[in-house]
């Protein structure tokens, strides 16, 4: 269980790679070979009915060696995914069945963490341009926060898109130096926890190709500092707008926060977004990753993406290491996690997985990852085939030729 480690332990191991990088050495496959590997569990699960879901997730945690040693007596922070507006959905489908992390999966994880001895569980997300409580955001999406809050004692939400309940932002620095930023100022919840968990939805992503456990952490960054309407000198008091500066680098974060390392680096979002995701995950290491693909969508990360369609992969992935977990999730989508720029789903962008592997967060090489539960070939949902057909159709419509 190499990556089931504390932030301090991770920092120590990362310093081997980071030291080399900071010394000016280029990232190479040699560094990638050093990236840790850890087990990943795969399970088929067709519904969000707790009668099916809870035993499945309990079995997955057992296959990983149990979560007790990770969470017992600890404050657990869980970042989940509520991307976009609560009023925007794909067709008439519930948002949780296409692009939000489903509350039933969060509730099951919360329940199992509590049974394993977690002292306190904090549920974190930065909903679109608002300071409103997460509970209110969920209600607008027609989701019931009590289903999650009632799953265990000592469970609470916090909106991390702004300062929230703290007096100041917490600075998390990147031991390897960072690709774009040397560190981030984040809501206190990301620092004041013993264990950090990412529960994501299995999806493609228009900018980053794939979104899972790591890309979910893009939403950790408060737009009061990193948004288009962030304060210039100090963070804005309230979040407005999106994280366009992360995408295009047209402005810097509030001056109170760590600034970009190299303002002459490419401004293309397909270059920046994967790197910033890795920077965020480097600053705030993930102890447990869960990628939920019971029901999801193809074509992108939310209903605003043209050509998006609902799908039912019927699968959950969980692992200690976010790169390993995302690699397995990609394989379940019939994408090659070893692929780089140019390879689906990274036709137009850099691979977040490769960039993460390069700085030693974890390996994406399936040959090095111990798999538990359902074999990948028994649980594949072919996103790749649907993607290829969609792109060919689009290409045909626009250019009358082949992609």
């Amino acid at each position, binding site marked *: 269980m190499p990556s089931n480690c504390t932030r301090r332990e991770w920092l120590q191991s990362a310093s081997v790679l980071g030291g080399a990088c900071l010394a000016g050495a280029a990232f190479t496959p040699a560094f990638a070979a050093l990236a840790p590997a850890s087990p990943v569990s795969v399970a088929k699960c067709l519904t969000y009915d707790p009668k099916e879901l809870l035993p499945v997730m309990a079995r997955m945690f057992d296959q990983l060696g149990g979560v007790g040693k990770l969470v017992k007596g600890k404050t657990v922070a869980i970042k989940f995914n509520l991307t976009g507006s609560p009023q925007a959905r794909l067709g008439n489908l519930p948002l949780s069945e296409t692009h939000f992390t489903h509350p039933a999966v969060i509730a099951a994880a919360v329940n199992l963490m509590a049974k394993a001895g977690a002292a306190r569980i904090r549920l974190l997300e930065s909903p679109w341009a608002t300071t409103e*409580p997460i509970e209110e955001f969920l209600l607008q999406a027609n989701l019931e926060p009590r289903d999650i809050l009632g799953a265990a004692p000592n469970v609470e939400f916090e909106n991390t898109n702004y300062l929230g309940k703290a007096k100041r932002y917490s600075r998390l620095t990147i031991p390897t130096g960072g690709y774009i930023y040397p560190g981030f100022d984040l809501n206190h919840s990301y620092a004041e926890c013993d264990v950090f968990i990412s529960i994501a939805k299995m999806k493609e992503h228009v900018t980053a190709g794939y979104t899972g456990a790591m890309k979910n952490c893009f939403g950790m960054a408060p737009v009061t500092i990193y948004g288009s309407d962030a304060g210039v000198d100090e963070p804005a008091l309230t979040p407005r707008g999106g994280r366009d500066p992360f995408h295009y680098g047209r402005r810097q974060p509030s001056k109170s926060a760590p600034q970009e390392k190299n303002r002459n680096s490419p401004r293309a979002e397909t270059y920046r977004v994967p790197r910033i995701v890795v920077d965020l995950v480097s600053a705030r290491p993930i102890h447990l990753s869960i990628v939920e693909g019971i029901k999801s969508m193809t074509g992108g990360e939310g209903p605003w993406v043209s050509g998006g369609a609902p799908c039912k992969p019927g699968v959950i992935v969980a692992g200690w290491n976010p790169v390993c977990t995302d690699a397995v999730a990609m394989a379940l989508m019939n994408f090659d996690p070893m692929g780089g720029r140019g390879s689906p789903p990274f036709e137009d962008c850099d691979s977040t997985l490769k960039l993460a592997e390069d700085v030693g967060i974890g390996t994406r090489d399936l040959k090095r990852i111990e798999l538990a539960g359902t074999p990948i070939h028994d649980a594949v949902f072919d996103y790749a085939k649907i993607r290829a057909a969609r792109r060919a159709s689009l290409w045909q419509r626009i250019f009358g030729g082949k992609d």
Partner: protein
Amino acid sequence: MSAELTPMRWPDRWKNASALTLLNDSPINCLVADPAIPESVVAEAKQKGLTIVDPAANPPGVFITKGQWPGVQALQDKVGAGPTGNPWVDSNGWSVRLESVRHPGDRVWVDARPKGLVSADSYALALADAAAYGGRWIISLDDRFAANVMVGKRDAVASWKKITTAAKFFEDRKAWAAYAPEAVVGIISDFAGDNEYMGGELLNLVARTNQQYRILLKNKLSPSSFARLKGVIYADATAPAPAVKNSIMAFVREGGLLITHPKWGLAPGLRAGTQDNERYWWRTSGKGRIAFAKSEFDDPWVIAQESALLISHRYDLLRFWNGGSVGSYFTMAPDRKRALVHILFYAGFGPEESGVRVAGNYRSAKLWTLDGKSSSIDMIPQKDAVELHLPAVAQYAAAELELQ
């Protein structure tokens, strides 16, 4: 008399009395006569039985209010966005509702003339934006459109037909005007003097959040004023009179929420044990709570947004998805056996796949559109609510629901 009148402002371009034939088979039976209207038109109109009214004076049973051309401002002016970046919507619905409360028994007419050239489709929106709320828009055409109708241009005539069909739609459903608004929040004010701006803007901007509200004139409060409300907003610039204060606090003691600010006077109730809001002190009284603002109210948009959270979206009567710039008005028949959700798409058209959750338990639903047709509608039962899946419709639709 007023209830039977469907008013129209006679276009300058219609010089000839023969243009009155354009009103044949339409519900338009009243001309608002500008001074320039030709005598021959007036004479012929009277002969046809049309009522001629002077726009300078409110006809009997009518109150005329000045309005804005409704719609999404960004589309009209290529400027203007709300604080969230969402398109700013102009609507006269709040004004119709306010004047209807202030002038009970009168029909409110909206005098909103097109600013320059407007899209032909926006006329139906202007008409629905008044009629859905129980008012009547004084049908007013821009010069070019009026001229095109006059000379019989096919597109213009078709659009004119849509306007008159829409007017007939509401004339055929006069009973809807007697339906009472369902509400979660009451807005208490005299809506006059120093309180006119804040009170009016609160109505306008609370409506933009699709919170369903009730207008409560503070000198006419009674226990029934608060029926089924979860909260009330008191944002006036002066403290309420003792009787008003007593009425409001009786509502609070029974479990309601009061949202107010230091102009109320001494903060009522007791300080609550939990304080979790940066802008409000929480206080309690009986079974209810008071959200007492730490500073005086100054921005109605902020209050409108905050009120939805202070009351909680848990009590939303309507929740929309994929609605775009949607407006709504939820009413109930006097016998409470039938509910009606007026839905206005201010961008001029409804999206392909929009939906609305309607609180309550219903056995059936149908959707009315301005062409007078009704259709069945997918109704998905939920806990204490139903979700309606709406087809793409232009400008306006009304969901009529039969309660269980």
